[in-house]
């Protein structure tokens, strides 16, 4: 049994990416989204870029804090730990 699924344009799909990744699409929208992605290299690459963007943004956290701030925090921590 086949169900007719209204097609979706690439231009619309890019606006649904976050809802897709957040699991916020309705069942019907979800089906349209996956149906489109399955046959579209451009949107597949776009979705991958979004996933990479999220992954790389998550790496910012490893950024070093300044040495001065570290020293201040260590002092504070030692002071607290010794009370």
């Amino acid at each position, binding site marked *: 049994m086949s169900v007719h699924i209204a097609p979706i*344009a*690439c*231009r*619309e799909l*890019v*606006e649904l*990416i*976050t*809802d897709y990744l*957040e699991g*916020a699409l309705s069942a019907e929208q979800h089906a349209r989204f996956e149906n489109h992605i399955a046959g*579209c*290299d*451009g*949107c*597949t*690459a*776009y979705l*991958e*870029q*979004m996933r*990479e*963007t*999220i992954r*790389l*943004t*998550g*790496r*910012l*956290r490893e*950024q070093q*804090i*300044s040495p001065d*701030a570290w020293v*201040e*925090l260590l002092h*504070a*921590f030692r002071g*607290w730990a010794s009370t």
Partner: protein
Amino acid sequence: MYVGSRAVAEDVAAETWLGVLRGIDGFQGRSSLRTWIFRILTNTAKTRAQRERRSIPFASLGDGDDGPAVDPDRFLPPGDPAAGAWASPPRGWDDLPEAALLSAETRSVIDAAIDQLPPTQREVIRLRDVEGFSSGEVRALLELSETNQRVLLHRARSKVRAALERYLSEDTA
């Protein structure tokens, strides 16, 4: 965020840790530790911002006119038989070495893109994608509806992606 410069932000981070250390004995465990620490952080930052007379009420911050996630010129125009399909599709980044993706320069591109976002978008992407808070935590902390949180996250991520794409394509060209 609530404060304008990196130096002030570092001060706020240090004050937050002091607040955490002073208050840990009184922590009741009624919220998650992360949420509790984050409340101390936002309170510290708001207090600091008031002191600097740069306080902006969070809820009143509009995000202005926000364009689409992708430049409309990259799609075939209305009237074309395939209107709305990619005219200039993105390229995957899987052929780029991991070292290039994780380089300090790539990081600074992401950092700069986040810094240029409107304040509410910036705060949502920092909490969700940099700090790793859940959507529920972010909604509670910033008092946003589910939809608003998602819209702000979408705009923020789309702009960071666009900045990365610009940078990574000039890098490999």
